[in-house]
């Protein structure tokens, strides 16, 4: 054999049929990931369509901000009054948050298997660009599929929350001729977001260097380092907050209401981001010592509470992204609970200010807001359950090993419950306290009311929210019980 010039090593993009074939959903985790992602995308799409539809309700010519819209009769005042409408838009937009958190968790379903698969494909010669192409294909198609459900879902919601309700209380405007256009735009946005998430999802060692060997060798992959990205988001939102605050007080014009809402939205986002950061940090660093120190009595030790606390802490540590994103959403839901607590307290204490019609109006508003918050909290909890059950699947060997060492299934369920409540309860309670106390401060200043009663109301609401979310966690664990038992099956100890 003689010297030959080295072959040029240029890579071309993969043919579409190959990408399609390789990105095809095969395992049950693939299908769950795709379905959950599509559901999250559908949720985001519906929330966006709702926001657009509400925002597009036409005003009457009268400059009065509380003028009712004539074009869409029968709407609830929160939608028909142009001054209240931005609040409704805001509520719809806030619904995007829990669904976004769900999407983040959904994309992580089976991430360990995906990670390994990426390593194996790389071993067989897939370039980083090839792997990216496959990931983008998968996430984009899941987002698109979810987006396709958005408009039909909006129609169903309109039937339920619009047409089915008596005139004057309808919560969604009738679909307009431009709905398909808005749908198309939402689809394009979702496809873009999906593609972006596909590029961003850190599945392989994208620092190409050790990509293959790392994927093959280091199978105990941890999920992501969230902190840098989130600090960037937090500072961005903070900057937006400062700018809009400056505009608001600088102009003092009639645009102040939308600006105020923008300000409020930015503040909520900032709070959520900071909460996400703190919660993720807390989960990531949740020291075993602190978890176990709470277990003191001999009886608790005998029951294995120390082991449960330790395992739950380890589980949360292993997935700080889930704890952070989901915790942030739950924190925002808590904020809204706190604000409503103040409103409800004011209704029952300051009887002189309201006529019966007013009272109904406010209670109705608070109920709608609470429903939005509850939906958000449930979706967030679902996201957390999704991440936990995926974590169970990924760590089934260690779960099985722990079970083999003699931790009975009931205790394993306890680990899941503990991991869920340790994330969810502090997030909701602190959100409710922060939101309630802040709003109470503003409200008391404005109305010269009694601080004590409001504080008591906020406290009561926070405790209630904490209890409710703890119960919800128990419920989720009951739903997950089958998966926990499956993960603890001793046969997982045999397979490599």
């Amino acid at each position, binding site marked *: 054999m003689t010297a030959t010039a080295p072959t040029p090593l240029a890579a071309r993009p993969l043919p579409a049929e190959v990408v399609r074939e390789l990105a095809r959903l095969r395992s049950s985790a693939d299908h769950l990931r795709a379905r959950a992602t599509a559901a999250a995308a559908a949720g985001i799409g519906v929330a966006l369509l709702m926001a657009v539809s509400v925002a597009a309700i036409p005003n009457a010519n009268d400059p009065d901000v509380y003028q009712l819209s004539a074009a869409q009769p029968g709407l609830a005042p929160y939608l028909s009054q142009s001054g209240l409408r931005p609040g409704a838009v805001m509520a719809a937009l806030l619904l995007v948050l829990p669904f976004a958190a769900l999407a983040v968790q959904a994309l992580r379903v089976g991430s360990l298997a995906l990670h390994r698969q990426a390593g*194996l494909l790389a071993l067989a010669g897939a370039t980083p660009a090839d792997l990216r192409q496959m990931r983008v294909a998968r996430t984009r198609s899941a987002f698109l599929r979810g987006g396709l459900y958005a408009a039909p879902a909006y129609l169903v919601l309109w039937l339920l929350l619009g047409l089915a309700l008596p005139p004057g209380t309808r919560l969604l405007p009738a679909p307009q001729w431009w709905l398909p256009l808005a749908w198309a735009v939402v689809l394009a946005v979702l496809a873009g977001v999906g593609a972006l998430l596909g590029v961003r999802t850190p599945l392989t060692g994208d620092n*190409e260097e*050790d990509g293959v060997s790392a994927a093959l060798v280091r199978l105990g992959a941890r999920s992501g380092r969230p902190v840098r990205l989130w600090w960037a988001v937090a500072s961005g939102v903070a900057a937006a907050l400062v700018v809009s605050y400056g505009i608001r007080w600088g102009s003092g014009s009639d645009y102040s209401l939308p600006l105020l809402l923008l300000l409020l939205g930015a503040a909520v986002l900032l709070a959520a981001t900071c909460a996400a950061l703190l919660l993720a940090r807390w989960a990531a660093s949740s020291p075993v010592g602190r978890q176990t120190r709470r277990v003191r009595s001999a009886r608790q030790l005998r029951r294995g509470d120390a082991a449960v606390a330790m395992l739950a802490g380890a589980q949360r540590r292993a997935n700080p992204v889930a704890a952070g994103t989901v915790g942030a959403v739950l924190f925002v839901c808590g904020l809204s609970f706190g604000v409503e607590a103040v409103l409800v307290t004011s209704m029952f204490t300051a009887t002189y200010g309201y006529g019966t019609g007013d009272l109904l109006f406010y209670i109705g508003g608070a109920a709608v807001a609470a429903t939005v918050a509850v939906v958000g909290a449930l979706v967030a909890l679902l996201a957390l359950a999704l991440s936990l059950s995926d974590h169970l699947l990924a760590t089934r060997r260690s779960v099985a090993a722990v079970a083999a060492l003699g931790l009975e299934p009931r205790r394993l369920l306890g680990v899941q419950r503990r991991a869920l409540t340790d994330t969810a309860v502090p997030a909701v309670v602190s959100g409710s306290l922060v939101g309630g106390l802040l709003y109470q401060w503003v409200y008391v200043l404005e109305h010269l009311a009694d601080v004590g009663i409001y504080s008591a109301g906020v406290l009561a609401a926070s405790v209630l929210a904490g209890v409710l979310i703890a119960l919800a966690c128990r419920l989720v664990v009951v739903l997950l019980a089958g998966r926990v038992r499956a993960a603890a099956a001793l046969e997982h100890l045999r397979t490599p």
Partner: protein
Amino acid sequence: MSTGPSPDQVPLLELDGVSHAYARTPALREVSLTVAPGEVVAVTGSSGSGKSTLLHVAAGLLRPQAGRVHLLGHDLAGVDATARAVLRRSEIGIVLQYVQLVPDLPVLDNVALPLTLNGSSLAAARTAAADALAEVGLTDAASAAPAELSGGQAQRAAVARALITSPRIVFADEPVASLDPVGGRQVLDLLRGVTARGAALVLITHDNTVAALADREVRLRQGSVEHEAVLR
């Protein structure tokens, strides 16, 4: 005792003073090695001697922290991840000890991977993969999932995939360590077959009977070449 390719042969692989460490633990220290066309080189040593790291560096899976690696005329220091992936799917074959088939793809598509990734049409790649599977006696397993194969069958499928591109050099890391003697023998015969067309085989093994199949032994100890001997 020492060796090297005859002067008329350009080495397929040349390692020169290669060092690598994981965190602070050195895995390879100043290792030099050449592999000539048609040669079977056994890299031996106890566990932790740096054998696998040597393979990962030589095959371009891992970038060494010091020293040079010339693989098939490419100086790997100047070759990015994409080009190294292209090299893997077109000119070199890699066989490892454990799972290397993508669990979700049927065996046929697994074997076809290097070709499909390299731009072949699915149909053409699958035809070639069917031939490659026939070569290793696995025609019946084409549509099976990798999990349904026995260890020996999975390893033969991995060999079929590694050989489907007619690579000029094949790296095998403990290819038979988890197989029984008969299955191991089949896999080794398949791998050694590449030398007939002038390709080289680098065999990482701790098993003396496997090492004794090579033309040359390079023995590692604590990351350094302890001894090198021609067995031919």
